[in-house]
């Protein structure tokens, strides 16, 4: 394979890249994946549950939790706690510099690491169903087989029989993870007070996580060590790197690490020349490679830049979609000062939906987490007391806290991406802002959650309702949307970029709209669908 021209070149090794690769590889096509492929800087030093790491009287624990370079001390407040964990420091490193990015009103999130942002994924895995496909040129049925294939490969734990099951989609599931006591208490009360809760537009159920509960040959089931935020020791939480490793065992798949693709140049006779920089050999000239078909899976920002470049759309602002988000903290008074659970799963516990009463796709969706995987010192920054008082309060509150994120549809914000070149090289500006409708939605969500959860015994912590900075979750999509009505930068229903035949946008860039649901599983399923479509075309 190494000596032969690849049938398809995939740019990017994240969830979309590997999801597109599998159908192609299984169909016998020769696939070359180009990726900068940055890996972790340091191996983990300590094994065992978080409580052991914090309590084992080991002076090296600070290296594990804050990092040798103490990156975990970062003063900036992060929406996703994983973003400041030293273990994941490598994931976003170099992203902004590589693309010459600047931001206005958004936080830039992206990755040049092998496996992309999936290395620090929150693992929430939800299908789009029914009305979620409003504005999509594909129907739910078209994505069904792809959702199932991806869910099977990734390994998703959850349940099929609660109030949210149909809303979260029909996919193969592994048995659910055990619930934290706080979440279990909420869910138990919800069972008996459902009617009252539904009057607030609120529906509650268990969340679904891309986390194994059954061992696989290359990954183990969750060991409930509460280290989810700090780097799973068992590889139970999905990362696209596991798929890359598995793909590399296939004879017709090659991964070229250290390759940062700078340009895709269309050739007059058809096909493309890819210019990529070998980042392992700085100072050397760009390497060129001929490609008949290209799949863009470099993330919505990276893929948009490559497409804008190839189409010569420099200097023109192109729309990009952002996912407006908010966060809330709830306290269960009955659990204040209670013993922390020795073992458990420290990511998503429950999921909820809040209907706004309008169109069926107009809803907020969020996941409820336990707070026991967090450090108390992170919490003290949010408590308006002196540090000693905040520390005592945080210690008492941690076992009683539930933290909820919440997303509303992408039409509550607007964003653009603009690329241009000058003598200094390439520049890209990403701009975004929340629209006035977001404030209305924020107030609605806060009202529904505070009233609904109060009925379940969890009370909104005063001052804890926060608007998240746009982009801080990494949910950038829609730069090359699949549109029935063509626009300048868009793709067909088959994912083919208009104006660039045989170039396919397979990552989040191709989604035309976001509902409140986290889009990762849909991005993966859509990549799988586009790749299957290409296989069909080629075999025909």
């Amino acid at each position: 394979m190494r000596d032969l021209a690849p049938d398809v070149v995939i740019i990017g090794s994240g969830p979309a890249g590997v999801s597109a690769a599998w159908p192609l590889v299984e169909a016998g096509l020769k696939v070359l994946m180009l990726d900068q492929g940055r890996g972790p800087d340091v191996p983990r030093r300590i094994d065992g549950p978080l409580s052991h790491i914090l309590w084992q009287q080991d002076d090296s624990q600070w290296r594990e939790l804050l990092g040798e370079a103490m990156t975990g001390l970062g003063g900036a407040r992060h929406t996703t706690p994983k973003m400041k964990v030293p273990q994941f420091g490598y994931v976003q490193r170099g992203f902004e510099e590589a693309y010459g990015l600047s931001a206005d009103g958004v936080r830039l999130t992206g990755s040049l690491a092998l496996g992309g942002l999936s290395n620090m994924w929150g693992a929430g895995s939800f299908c789009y169903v029914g009305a979620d496909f409003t504005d999509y040129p594909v129907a739910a049925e078209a994505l069904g087989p792809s959702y199932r294939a991806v869910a099977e490969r990734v390994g998703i734990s959850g349940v099929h029989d609660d109030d949210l099951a149909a809303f979260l989609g029909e996919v193969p599931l592994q048995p659910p993870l055990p619930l934290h006591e706080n979440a279990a208490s909420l869910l138990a009360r919800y069972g008996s007070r459902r009617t009252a809760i539904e009057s607030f537009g609120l529906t509650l159920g268990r969340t679904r996580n891309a986390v194994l509960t059954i061992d696989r040959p290359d990954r183990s089931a969750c060991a409930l060590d509460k280290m989810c935020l700090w780097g799973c020791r068992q590889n139970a939480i999905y990362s696209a790197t596991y798929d890359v490793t598995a793909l590399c065992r296939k004879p017709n798949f090659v991964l070229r690490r250290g390759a940062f693709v700078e340009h895709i140049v269309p050739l007059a006779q058809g096909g493309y020349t890819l210019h990529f920089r070998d980042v392992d050999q700085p100072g050397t000239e760009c390497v060129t490679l001929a490609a008949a078909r290209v799949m863009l899976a470099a993330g919505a920002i990276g893929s948009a830049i490559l497409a804008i470049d190839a189409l010569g759309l420099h200097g023109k602002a192109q729309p990009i979609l952002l996912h407006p988000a908010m966060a809330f903290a709830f306290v269960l008074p009955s659990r204040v000062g209670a013993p922390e659970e020795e073992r458990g799963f420290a990511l998503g516990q429950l999921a909820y939906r809040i209907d706004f009463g309008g169109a069926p796709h107009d809803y907020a969706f969020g996941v409820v987490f336990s707070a026991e995987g967090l450090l108390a010192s992170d919490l003290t920054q949010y408590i308006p007391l002196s540090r000693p008082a905040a520390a005592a309060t945080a210690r008492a509150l941690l076992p009683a806290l539930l933290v909820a994120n919440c997303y509303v549809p992408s039409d509550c914000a607007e964003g653009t991406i603009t690329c241009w070149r000058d003598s200094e090289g390439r520049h890209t500006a990403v701009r975004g802002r929340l629209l006035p409708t977001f404030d209305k939605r924020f107030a609605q969500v806060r009202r529904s959650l505070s009233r609904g959860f109060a009925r379940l015994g969890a009370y909104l912590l005063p001052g804890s309702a926060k608007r998240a900075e746009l982009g801080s979750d990494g949910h950038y999509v829609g730069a090359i949307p699949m549109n029935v009505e063509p626009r300048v930068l868009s793709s067909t229903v088959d994912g083919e970029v208009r104006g660039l035949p045989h170039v396919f946008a397979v990552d989040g860039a191709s989604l035309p709209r976001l509902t409140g649901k986290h889009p990762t599983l849909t991005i993966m399923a859509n990549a799988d669908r586009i790749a299957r479509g290409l296989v069909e075309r080629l075999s025909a």
Partner: protein
Amino acid sequence: MVVGRGLVDEHEREAEALLTYVLGCQPSSVLKNRYRQALVVQGEGVVLNLHAFALWCPALLRLIEPRGEPRTASQVSLARRLNIAMALVETSTEGVDRMRRPANSTRLAIVGRVFVALALDLVSLPILVLCRSLGR
């Protein structure tokens, strides 16, 4: 401007004051060194201009520490250093008992400490307001 050995001594005093304040007892030299190392890697070279009383009795920091969002540049600096001190304390051997729940702490003791800490904050509030007014 403090340089060389003098700067090291100033950082030492600052480390001792802030760590004692959040830890509630004298910090070890290992923890103080770690604090100084953290200032270096975080690019926090300038010594905090702490009042002599706060250096002498770190508990008095309760009277000048900003509550909630810091507003002035000096408050921002103090809040940032306190965040560093808090994180170092929590991830240190000696701070584990203070910030996380040790096996032998009762629930009553934990909740009791919250009330004591809140009471101290309440008592210090008028002095905090007075200090702010005099500061203006």
